[in-house]
């Protein structure tokens, strides 16, 4: 659980990015970006909306609400995305690009894993730990897929180079999916391992 003041600060930061994105999208601000601002606005709004929606699901039950670190991850991700729009970054296909997609997937996987684990601990769902890890993994891949659709429609509607369609032999979506899968798989694998070790220690301590 995070303090009320902390939550307000984070929500203000999210709102700030959404407003900046919206004003640039409709032409009331003219901050230069490498891609169309509409895509960034949608991403920021969806990340914020997803966190609040998870909170709403948990509040309906006597379960812990979304922790502060999840909000920090969310705002960090959106801010990083904004910096990619505003600052010159290494080209798509570079090591930086691969790293960002893997890291983003791992960050999403951490929040999704926490969500499913909280629902399991709160007796809303009952699933074996490895299955929980797998479900967190495939849910993360769905989130990454939705982000890929944002890039797809950005490229289609605004003719931006989000899918590297202007590069001969460009990598398009596949390599990004590959690094998403790597990031999500690594996180969920180690998360399950850590949880299993904790469960073993708890069992041994009881004995």
């Amino acid at each position, binding site marked *: 659980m995070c303090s009320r003041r902390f939550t307000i600060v984070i929500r203000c930061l999210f709102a700030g990015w959404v407003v900046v994105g919206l004003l640039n999208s409709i032409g009331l601000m003219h901050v230069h970006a490498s891609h169309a601002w509409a895509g960034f606005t949608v991403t920021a709004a969806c990340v914020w909306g997803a966190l609040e929606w998870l909170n709403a699901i948990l509040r309906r039950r006597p379960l812990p609400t979304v922790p502060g670190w999840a909000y920090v991850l969310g705002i960090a991700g959106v801010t990083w995305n904004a910096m990619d729009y505003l600052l010159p970054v290494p080209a798509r296909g570079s090591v930086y690009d691969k790293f960002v997609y893997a890291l983003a997937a791992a960050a999403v996987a951490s929040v999704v894993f926490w969500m499913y684990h909280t629902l399991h601990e709160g007796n809303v769902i009952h699933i074996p730990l490895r299955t929980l890890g797998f479900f967190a993994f495939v849910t993360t891949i769905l989130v990454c*897929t939705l982000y890929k659709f944002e890039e797809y429609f950005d490229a289609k509607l605004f003719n931006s180079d989000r899918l590297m369609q202007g590069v001969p032999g460009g990598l398009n979506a596949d390599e990004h999916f590959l690094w998403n899968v790597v990031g999500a798989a690594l996180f969920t694998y180690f998360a399950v391992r850590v949880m299993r070790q904790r469960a073993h220690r708890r069992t041994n301590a009881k004995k």
Partner: protein
Amino acid sequence: MSNRTATNWVRAGFAAWLTFELLNWVGILHFTLDFSWLGLFLTVTVLWVAIEIVSWRLRKAGLESLPWPAYLAGLIGTSWDALGDVARLYTRIYHYDKIAHFMGGGAAALVVFFLYRQLQRSGKLQLPPPLVAFLAICTANFIGVLYELEEFSETYTLKNNRMGDAFDTSTDVLFNLLGAITLVSIVAYVLYRKKRTSLPPHV
């Protein structure tokens, strides 16, 4: 009709396709197609074997095997692909590929949905019904992403450009997901409504 009888009819459908493709591959029949007989044969074989393995593992765990709609979903998905190749519908009908991905995504999602539902009914999983449907869609989406990664690895290693243009992967995944969402939503809704009345035990 019992689940076993209906499943056997669908198995006959798989066997018919395999026989037809095998006879063409070895040169006894001489139908032509856009891609390769071996590719078609492997696709049907892998899918049928995968569904049978899942059913066998369920029975081995003391649970009921996959119901006949799961088999039928697999057969419809592969038949759509095979027909598109043999009747050259991929080249004749502009959006046939997109429809194939829609059907394939839907078929994969239905098989996974019925698997999770069997695990749910046996008590191995305890999930709210909407979450069962959601996770089936997520899993089917991942299967679709894996398929695109397979095409990527072929292009990367064999240089055969299986990937198509820059929009191809995203378009394929989009229609996979739309098919998964549509078919699972329909089936889950029908099953949820029918739950209020008596159902045959295998559905």
